[in-house]
């Protein structure tokens, strides 16, 4: 069963789809939709889960760890953990938030145990160097450079944030999650999330103040 699931996940497309765009099968041998809470369609099949959540999980882990290969490995671990635990999803939050919570826990476990696994450490990626604005024909070359510089400033400011603040910042601005969803995913109180988010925005705004 495990091999089957891993194979399915490996074959699943990396293309990200929104929850509404998914066309998951309601019937079939692997369909679990009947036993899952309403709205948990992404947990119905391994294909639906991987195609909708893989890119999202990888993105969050990649920007949190800044290690490409580790993020890829952990993404597989998270998808497998979600698939195995799908029966325990009670529908108290959205399935996307629930998946993100498992990703958060996996990240914490990795960070906790990774301190001792010095032989598995890989070189961290310079995200600031990688971030490039999407090509825009309306922009001049100079504007393109300025836009790139602004993005680097934003990331540089985000890197200086505390781990929690950065997680909240990324979940809000990159994953477009609301404060309530972030609180569910991280296990923090709503007020704490709002405080972290406010401080993170303040720090980033101060860093990019000149370019505004």
């Amino acid at each position, binding site marked *: 069963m495990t091999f089957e699931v891993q194979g399915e996940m490996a074959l699943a497309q990396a293309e990200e789809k929104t929850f509404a765009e998914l066309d998951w099968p309601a019937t079939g041998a692997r369909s679990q939709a009947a036993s899952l809470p309403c709205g948990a369609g992404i947990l119905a099949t391994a294909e639906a889960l991987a195609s909708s959540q893989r890119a999202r999980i990888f993105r969050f882990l990649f920007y949190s760890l800044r290690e490409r290969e580790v993020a*890829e490995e952990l993404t597989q671990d998270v998808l497998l953990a979600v698939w195995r635990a799908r029966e325990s999803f009670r529908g108290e939050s959205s399935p996307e938030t629930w998946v993100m919570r498992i990703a958060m826990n996996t990240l914490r476990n990795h960070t906790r145990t990774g301190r001792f696994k010095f032989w598995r450490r890989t070189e961290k990626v310079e995200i600031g160097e990688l971030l490039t604005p999407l090509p825009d024909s309306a922009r001049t070359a100079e504007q393109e450079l300025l836009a790139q510089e602004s*993005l680097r400033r934003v990331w540089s400011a985000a890197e200086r944030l505390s781990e929690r603040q950065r997680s909240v910042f990324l979940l809000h601005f990159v994953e477009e999650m609301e404060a309530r969803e972030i609180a569910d995913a991280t296990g923090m109180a709503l007020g704490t999330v709002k405080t972290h988010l406010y401080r993170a925005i303040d720090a980033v705004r101060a860093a990019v103040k000149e370019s505004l």
Partner: protein
Amino acid sequence: MKSREQDQKFDDLMREFREACVHTAHREQAAADHLRQERAVAAMRADVRLRWAAPAFAALVLMFVGGGWGAWWYVHPEHGHPAGHDGAHVTSPDSIPGNASAVSDEVLLSEVQSDLSDRVPQALEPLAVSYTSNSHAPSGEKEIQ
């Protein structure tokens, strides 16, 4: 008014930041996938090579070691020529009869019979003495002839 303008610019910047993050992550994920596939292929090739090469190499090593040990054993004076064994007579052409099939059955039979006649009486003699002495002694006394 200026503050609202700055808020708008900040929102635009954060939207652009999100788009750049999504785009970059997608690119990095594709690169990670590609790297993983390359590693998997390399691992499979190495596995295939190992599956064939390892036993072949082991057999080759065993052959050389066995051959070397055999040569040493043969050449060494203590093992190559053990006591009472003269290896030379085995391969000497003089020890091989010229025409073994030419010896007739009668000759062979007579040789065997003469050989047996030489050996059997000597071997049975003590037993025969003991038998005659016991069976013909009327009073239990041994009659030694």
